[in-house]
């Protein structure tokens, strides 16, 4: 009962939700433009063979469909700008799902997932930051819908892993083996060395890969909710989805999933401090770079006047708990907190684990 109450009362900084809103708005726009392009190139789907989930009478006429697409473009732009973002996200999601229901030939899991997340986003305080015009609302807001979005991420992984786990062909590696046999050439064309593709096309390897894929999805479904395992899960999930992106055609699914990982970011802002020595060009460059890449507002970036204690460090990072990191450990912290550098986090963390250097308790 207390968990339920905590879920309903929880609030947090909404900055990250602004980033999620812009990304999801961009994907809604891209998805709608793809549909508009199909309309121009192939004609209106309702004039030819289509398979509606809905009764045929509910499928719109050509002119209404064009109006729906135009509305979806406008709504997606509003979502990105953060202007009337909440109703725009809700309407985008509902119109998108309506379009899917009008023709199941256009159904794809990633499109449906996008509309699910846009729907849930509409119940979050996603319109309080990164808006044009600027929002005057309190940056903190309720997080109950963010928790629902987190569960939605987990449900997708569970559903995907569960269906594979119950399928002999999938569990045994037969599905992956056949995919490698047919798409190996495409992977090679994308830059994967042929020897790697060949090695991964052995039945024993695909059997192991199948079990790894299922375990990964199950792990992600659960570990994302663990404070201790979350960072590892996020990194592993990133690698998992980038691998899928390279080896398969999945439309926006990779980028949507990576965007939804932001729902798991701790909802605070500038909780870590990034101190840099303004007298050094390298420090100033690092400060500018981190400021540009710090999409989730993890760092408060401040110069400090070096004295006899502080000299020798280009940057010092103060973590949430007040502990400080320099050198390799500071770089690891930066990689951990910035989406574009996050792929580097695990290798840097591994390197940093071999040394105690860069860990300091002394005052700045």
């Amino acid at each position, binding site marked *: 009962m207390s968990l339920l109450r905590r879920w309903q009362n929880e609030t947090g900084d909404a900055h990250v939700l602004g980033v999620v809103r812009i990304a999801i708005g961009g994907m809604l726009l891209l998805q709608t433009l793809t549909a508009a392009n199909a309309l121009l190139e192939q004609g209106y789907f309702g004039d030819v063979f289509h398979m509606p989930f809905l009764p045929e009478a509910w499928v719109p006429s050509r002119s209404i469909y064009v109006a729906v697409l135009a509305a979806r473009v406008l709504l997606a732009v509003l979502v990105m700008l953060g202007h009337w973002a909440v109703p725009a996200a809700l309407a985008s999601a509902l119109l998108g799902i309506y379009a899917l229901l009008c023709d199941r*030939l256009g159904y794809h899991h990633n499109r449906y997932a996008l509309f699910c997340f846009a729907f849930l986003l509409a119940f979050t305080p996603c319109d309080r930051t990164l808006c044009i015009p600027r929002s005057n609302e309190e940056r903190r807001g309720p997080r109950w819908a963010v928790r629902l979005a987190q569960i939605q991420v987990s449900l997708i992984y569970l559903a*995907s892993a569960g269906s594979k786990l119950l*399928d002999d062909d999938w569990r045994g590696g037969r599905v992956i083996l056949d995919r490698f046999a047919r798409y190996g050439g495409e992977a090679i064309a994308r830059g994967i060395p042929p020897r790697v593709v060949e090695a991964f096309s052995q039945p024993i390897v695909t059997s192991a890969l199948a079990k790894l894929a299922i375990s990964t999805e199950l792990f992600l479904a659960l570990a994302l909710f663990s404070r201790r395992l979350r960072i590892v899960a996020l990194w592993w999930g990133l690698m998992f989805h980038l691998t899928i992106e390279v080896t398969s055609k999945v439309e926006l*699914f990779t980028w949507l999933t990576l965007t939804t990982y932001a729902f798991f970011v701790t909802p605070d802002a500038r909780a870590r401090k990034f101190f840099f020595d303004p007298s050094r060009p390298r420090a100033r460059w690092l400060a500018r770079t981190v400021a540009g890449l710090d999409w989730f507002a993890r760092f408060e970036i401040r110069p400090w006047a070096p004295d006899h204690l502080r000299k020798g460090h280009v940057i010092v990072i103060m973590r949430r708990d007040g502990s400080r990191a320099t050198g390799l450990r500071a770089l690891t912290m930066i990689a951990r907190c910035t989406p574009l550098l996050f792929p580097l986090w695990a290798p840097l963390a591994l390197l940093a684990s071999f040394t105690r250097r860069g860990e300091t308790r002394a005052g700045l």
Partner: protein
Amino acid sequence: MPVFGRRVAFAALYLAGQLALILTAGDRSDNAFGFRMFSESSTLNVRLVRYIEAPSGHGTVAVPIEGTTWTAHDAAGVLHRFDWRDRVREPGLSLFGGTMHASYGANAQLARFQAALDDVASHTPFDAETRQLGLEIDVRKNGREPTHVSLTSRPRKVESAGSAAP
């Protein structure tokens, strides 16, 4: 209802809906709304045929169609050209003679082909020769040996006409 009660009701309804859709995905040929990613690695090799009245006057014979087009006379004896792609624009449902990937599984693709057959058969009113359209499909599921499936459209009501080359 207080705001907390509304949130609980909303969340319960949303999650129950998602769970219901996931658990019943197997009942839908394409597993729609079930998030069953990469569920199969199946391919189909499809050939389009049409069934016309046998020369003997008893029953029908299958006539293979090259590609997606065929010609047939209407009831007045005027020759018409028909193209499967006039009705079916989806690339995955209009590639005949080559191997195509069934991205949502073989069952989904077969169900879509069946619906497409019925649709095309009911939208070619000037074809007074074809009694049924059909698809001869070799299905290779997850790399196994292919199995053969024959699909036919609902029988068409046609008025008598002379025979024509496919």
